[in-house]
């Protein structure tokens, strides 16, 4: 058992393991990436895992883009990204101004070149294992800012339906998450119980809320880690009772050729990676579809 295998997936993160190539060495270009069997089993069991970025520089780059744009929009000087994010609430924006700021930040961040590709590269090993080399990504990355005491939080919910059960959600905190400054998730077992409650006629919604509060696993995560969870899991963010603001990104990936939910391609997703085989097949079809 390697060191990674000894870590519970929701309290400690891991690096996906590159299988050894023919010469006994894992190489950048030829390695076959797989989750270790233990973590694959854990993901199947719980429906989620926390993984460290394989390319930490890429995540730093994403954080830098957001930091720069946020400072520019607010017209404030700040040299330290961590302090800026954690103490964001000290800017004193009211609800309306905060919403305007967030909408503009999301728009400008998603206009920056290749942000989804950078995130994909940062977690490529894990994403290859979960969805395969033919992958699509949500076209627009969401940015969530949760200031201390902000009661504007979504109730516990799952993404599928209307999203596809063949999607994985990537939740990427830009700040350290602890206590209520994080996210809570119901594993497969608890989500199944939740489904039973909501499928009753009428839905046992109050029981469901109690279950979510009792069974939600609060996640403690560092910047540089990401939560990968199945769209069938219920999740929620608690009211942030800590003294720091939480910043996080979320986006969804799926296999290009797996079933879609109500959100398709190219309205919601776009291609981020193609396997060599798909490239050959598409290239062949193109010759007859688009003759020169």
């Amino acid at each position, binding site marked *: 058992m390697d060191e990674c295998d000894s870590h519970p997936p929701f309290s400690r993160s891991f690096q996906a393991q590159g299988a050894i190539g023919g010469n006994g060495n894992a190489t950048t270009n030829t390695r076959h990436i797989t989750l270790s069997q233990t973590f694959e089993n854990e993901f199947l069991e719980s429906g989620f895992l926390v993984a460290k970025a394989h390319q930490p520089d890429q995540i730093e780059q994403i954080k830098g883009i957001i930091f720069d744009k946020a400072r520019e929009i607010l017209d404030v000087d700040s040299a330290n990204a961590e302090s800026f994010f954690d103490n964001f609430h000290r800017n004193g924006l009211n609800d309306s101004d905060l919403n305007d700021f967030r909408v503009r930040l999301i728009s400008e961040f998603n206009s920056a070149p290749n942000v989804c590709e950078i995130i994909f590269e940062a977690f490529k090993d894990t994403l290859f294992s979960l969805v395969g080399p033919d992958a*699509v990504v949500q076209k627009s990355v969401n940015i969530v800012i949760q200031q201390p005491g902000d009661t504007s939080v979504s109730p516990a919910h799952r993404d599928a339906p209307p999203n596809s059960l063949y999607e994985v959600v990537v939740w990427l905190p830009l700040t350290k998450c602890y206590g209520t400054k994080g996210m809570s998730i119901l594993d497969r077992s608890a989500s199944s119980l939740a489904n039973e409650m909501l499928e009753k006629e009428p839905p046992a919604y109050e029981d469901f809320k109690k279950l979510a509060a009792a069974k939600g696993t609060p996640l403690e995560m560092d910047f540089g880690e990401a939560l990968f969870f199945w769209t069938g899991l219920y999740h929620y963010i608690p009211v942030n009772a800590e003294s720091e603001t939480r910043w996080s990104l979320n986006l969804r990936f799926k296999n*290009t*050729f797996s079933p*879609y939910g109500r959100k*398709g*391609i*190219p*309205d919601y997703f*776009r*291609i981020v990676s*193609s396997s060599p085989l798909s490239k050959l097949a*598409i290239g062949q*079809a*193109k010759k007859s*579809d*688009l003759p020169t």
Partner: protein
Amino acid sequence: MKSFYSCLDNGCSNTLTQAMQHTINGQMATDNFGTVVFYTAEDRETLGHQSVMRSKIMERPAIDGIVYLRLYQFCYSGTFDFGFLMELLDNGYEVHFSREKLSIQHRDQLDELYETLKVFEFLAAQEQPSNPGALSD
């Protein structure tokens, strides 16, 4: 100010009324620096061949392009009609799709988008009803 034809989709008019489709395509025209000067729609029988729009284009109207409600309007025949899309582009017309917020303004762009459109075709074919005219959504 650019001028566009708006091509509504009778295949989904049970869900999106014509009035709603006018609003959506009108906004797409505005987003692309133009306005809708004429609208049309295929009959249920011509959805797959786009006979109505083909006929209008043969008149070589002095417009900048066409705003479609959605990409699926090119898939009613069961495969993506790359031929007609190329014909529109080769005749100098821009082609816009409101649902997907997708604009194709020249042939080079079609080359770049080909993989995405081919995947769309693949997925659309899996949902293709035996009788396109019976589509309600």
